């Protein structure tokens, strides 16, 4: 049992920036136009047609440079931000090597424009090309594209490629269904629907995954594609996946492997060898690039030879020792986002893969699965914690989903309360489950290869302590957090049009309206 830390967040009572500063202060000055410029063109404001000039100044705060710096540093200090232990499942928390931040912050990446002539981009193109080859080796795919700005965007890319593929075969109007499973990330169903497809979602069966028979019943001449992850977020591997791909292919559809949960199987599974036509890796997750609290991210999308023509452009090509961009392709879906993707993140992922090497990558997979199984043993010793599909005894892969339903039934303490209490000990919130919750009161930790055994033990000890508190003093847990920068947030009004406020100006107006209403009542 670890000694629990006497953690307390920094409390700055930091006002919203809109409340800070004083009229007249400046945080950044711009030069005056040179006399030669001014003489030639006069005042700047006069260069805007009168009808479309701004009439009143924006009501932005006015702060000195230091005040801005201090304010945002306070906000960073009021963010737990993985400064303790974060085992946020489905996201594979990794160390983001600082060397990559330093290298990509230099002008040779930061001050590149994507429209530069290829001759001036040879360094970055070499890295993109090299990383493409690394991902092709890991997946067995023929070509990757880095344009998608996250995993969901890669899923969307697949839906777009699917449209182009069936259009090319003259079957798009007929093939209007995409099959997925209830355990696939919501983005698979949502992006396919936004691309215009109808969604067929397979439920789980007692084995922990949908049956082959269910898939056979779902596919038809209307099937455009299958979009699926494996293993899923419960750490359960569908052993029939090869057969699944065959069934979809026999029906004339494409098979897409959402490799969000690649960390535990790196070096063991190749998507192409399992028959998949396309796959996706999240570079901000599996490949050591930072998550940024929600991007900039990269969903690297890779496909077989047959689909390369349909990929978004541009693609990096090599001629001898020179590299160039192929900007258009006659059958390409065009663009899912402007430019070539979050290039610094690709460089960071390349750097991570080089730092790890083939052995290191395989070792990371081993360690992440080993750490997860170590966690499972200890977690199941805690009162009231159960495992999803407890009858499945085979070791799970890099994460396992658990439930505290028993604790909730016994004490009224929910997973949200436990999250809020664990942060009082410097432990970042755990991941619960994507919608819908198939497991009641779920939580999904993922240890990965980063965290030491001591960190994992500390995390488990904090959870054990909080569960003890749930039984001994449930009110303490339900009113958590107590050691954070602020107290428990009441978001009960967040869906009420009279109370939600996504901007300060809406907040100020609605506060005034509420006061007026209270005054007249």
């Amino acid at each position, binding site marked *: 049992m670890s000694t629990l830390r006497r953690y307390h967040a920094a409390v700055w009572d*930091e006002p919203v*920036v*809109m409340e800070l*500063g004083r009229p007249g202060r*400046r945080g950044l000055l711009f030069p005056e136009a040179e006399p*030669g410029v001014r003489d*030639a*063109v006069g005042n700047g*404001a006069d260069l805007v047609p009168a009808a*479309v000039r*701004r009439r009143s100044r924006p009501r*932005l705060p006015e702060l000195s*440079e230091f005040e*801005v*710096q201090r304010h945002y540093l306070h906000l960073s200090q009021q*963010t*737990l*931000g993985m400064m303790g232990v974060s085992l946020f499942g489905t996201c594979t928390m990794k160390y983001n090597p600082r060397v990559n931040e330093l*290298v990509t912050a230099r*002008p*040779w990446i*930061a*001050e590149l424009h*994507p429209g530069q*002539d290829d001759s001036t*981009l040879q360094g970055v193109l070499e*890295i993109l090309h*090299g990383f493409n080859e690394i991902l092709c080796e890991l997946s067995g795919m023929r070509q990757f594209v880095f344009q998608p700005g996250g995993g969901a965007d890669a899923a969307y890319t697949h839906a777009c490629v699917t*449209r182009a593929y069936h259009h090319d075969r003259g079957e798009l109007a007929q093939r209007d269904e995409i099959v997925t499973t209830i355990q696939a990330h*919501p983005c698979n169903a*949502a992006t396919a629907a936004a691309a*215009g497809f109808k*969604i067929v979602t397979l439920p789980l069966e007692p084995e922990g995954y949908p049956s082959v028979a269910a898939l056979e019943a779902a596919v038809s001449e209307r099937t455009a594609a299958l979009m699926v992850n494996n293993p899923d977020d419960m750490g359960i591997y569908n*052993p029939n996946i090869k057969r699944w791909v065959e069934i979809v292919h026999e029906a004339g559809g494409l098979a897409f492997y959402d490799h969000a949960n690649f960390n535990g199987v790196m070096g063991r*599974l190749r998507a192409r060898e399992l028959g998949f036509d396309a796959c996706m890796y999240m570079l901000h997750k599996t490949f050591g690039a930072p998550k*940024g609290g*929600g*991007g900039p991210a990269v969903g690297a999308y890779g496909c077989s030879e047959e689909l390369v023509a349909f990929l978004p452009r541009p693609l990096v090509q090599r001629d001898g020792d020179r590299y160039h961009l192929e900007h258009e392709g006659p059958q390409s879906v065009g663009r899912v*986002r*402007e430019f070539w993707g979050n*290039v610094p993140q*690709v460089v960071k992922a390349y750097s991570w893969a080089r730092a790890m*090497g*083939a052995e*290191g990558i395989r070792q990371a997979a081993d*360690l992440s699965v*080993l750490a997860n199984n170590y966690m499972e*043993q200890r977690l199941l010793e805690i009162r009231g914690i159960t495992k999803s599909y407890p009858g499945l005894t085979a070791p799970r892969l890099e994460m396992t989903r658990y439930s505290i339903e028993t604790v909730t039934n016994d004490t009224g303490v929910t997973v949200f309360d436990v999250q809020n209490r664990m*942060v009082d000990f410097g432990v*970042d919130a755990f991941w619960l489950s994507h*919608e819908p919750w198939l497991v009641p009161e779920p939580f999904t930790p993922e240890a990965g290869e980063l965290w030491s*055994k001591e960190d994992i033990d500390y995390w488990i000890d904090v959870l054990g302590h909080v569960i003890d508190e749930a039984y001994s003093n449930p009110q303490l847990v339900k009113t958590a957090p107590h050691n*954070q*920068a602020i*107290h428990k947030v*009441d*978001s009960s*009004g967040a869906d009420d049009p009279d109370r939600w406020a*996504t*901007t300060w100006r809406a907040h100020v107006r609605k506060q005034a309206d509420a006061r007026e209403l209270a005054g007249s009542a």
Partner: protein
Amino acid sequence: MTPTARSAHPYMANSAPALSQELLDAVGVADVEDLFVQIPVEHLTQRALRLPPALPSEVDLARHLKRTLAANVDCEQTLSFLGGGCWQHHVPAICDEIGGRTEFLTPVWGTPSSDVGRNQAWFEFASQLGELLELEFCGLPVYSWGCAAGPAIRMAARMTERREVLVAASVDPERLAVIRTYCEPPEMTSHIDVVLAEIDAATGGLNLAALAQLVSERTAAIYFETPGGLGVIEPACERIVALARAHGAETIVGMDPISLGVLAPPGQFGADVAVGPTQPLGVHMNCGGGVGGFIATRDEERYAREYPTLQVSICPTSVEGEHGFGLTLFEQSSYGSRELGNDWTGNSVYLWAVVNAAYMALLGPAGFAQLGELILQRSHYAARRISELPGVSVRWTDFFKEFVVDFSESGKTVEQVNAGLRAHGIFGGGDLSRSFPQLGQCALYCVTEVHAQEDIDRLVAALAEETR
């Protein structure tokens, strides 16, 4: 474990052989392979990974990266006039410091209380953008300007139950390609027709007479930009809004927020939805990897309930007078409702939102005004000087930071001019001859606060030589 692993890897705490063994012993397996029994043997790859040699030492890794990247020629070493959706602006040092803070950089989500700082920064992003736009409702950022415009058009299509959008023909081709992706091909039942609305050859703004012919009761939205893909400030924003409204269509305007110290904001001329880029607000170009986008509207339920994004609302806490932040309208997102939600969302560019917030706070109202005026002065100075060159002209005169230079009369192609400029250490404006062939040999030049008069004079001298 991997038998050849000699030393612990710095990124993996349990990689030292004795520590791995400790875990194996605790789990009670002799071999880690015993933990992979769920995977059928015939699924396992039969071929070991063949990757380039590992560089586990930071010394070697840094050397390799630096040697490779040194082959790039960047826009700081040279003088660049490239724009077109990714622009070179000054990035204040504080923006880099804040964007590099590990608490913001490394993690994903926390609880609203444990990560109040990040949530507050996001709220401040939306709040300050809302002041610039004079709009009250703003979502968390999206991937890019195009990834804002496409979903905004889909919002309008859902609201009006119409399936046609009129798009100004001057929209940047890269952005238009993204919009077309979001509007779906004709075979899809929810396809939205993208109809290009021609521009007025004299002003570069929308041709209002032609637009009036196009707009109808089928029109879900008119989408135009100011300044647009050819740099032009649209002079008739209010009339476009009125035209859309008369036909029950929404007006979606694309605007670069860095222009909003001087240009009329969407709230002033009555646009329903505003979209635009966030990269100009303190984010490096990053080879196009700095781009981000925003969607904002009036705070009306009709709009709010169609957002595909996540958004943060200011909220009370359990302590009187304390404020926190929580997600609003989560259920309508794809996280909340899978395929039944409004389109989809996911990881975006939330780190840049924090940087954008710091940038807007640094500038304040006076900063935006001063910056806008400076950009106008320098870009117009550049346009004037360039248009004095024989055989070279500037197409339209009402512009903000980008303008179209026509080399057709010089007898040179843009490609030739730009190749010549590179020898002077200058990146000329983006080549429009392929994307807008009807314009002839034109290029889009971008001039911002980073371009001093001496830089512009140097460009003009080099252009004089290269167009001679």
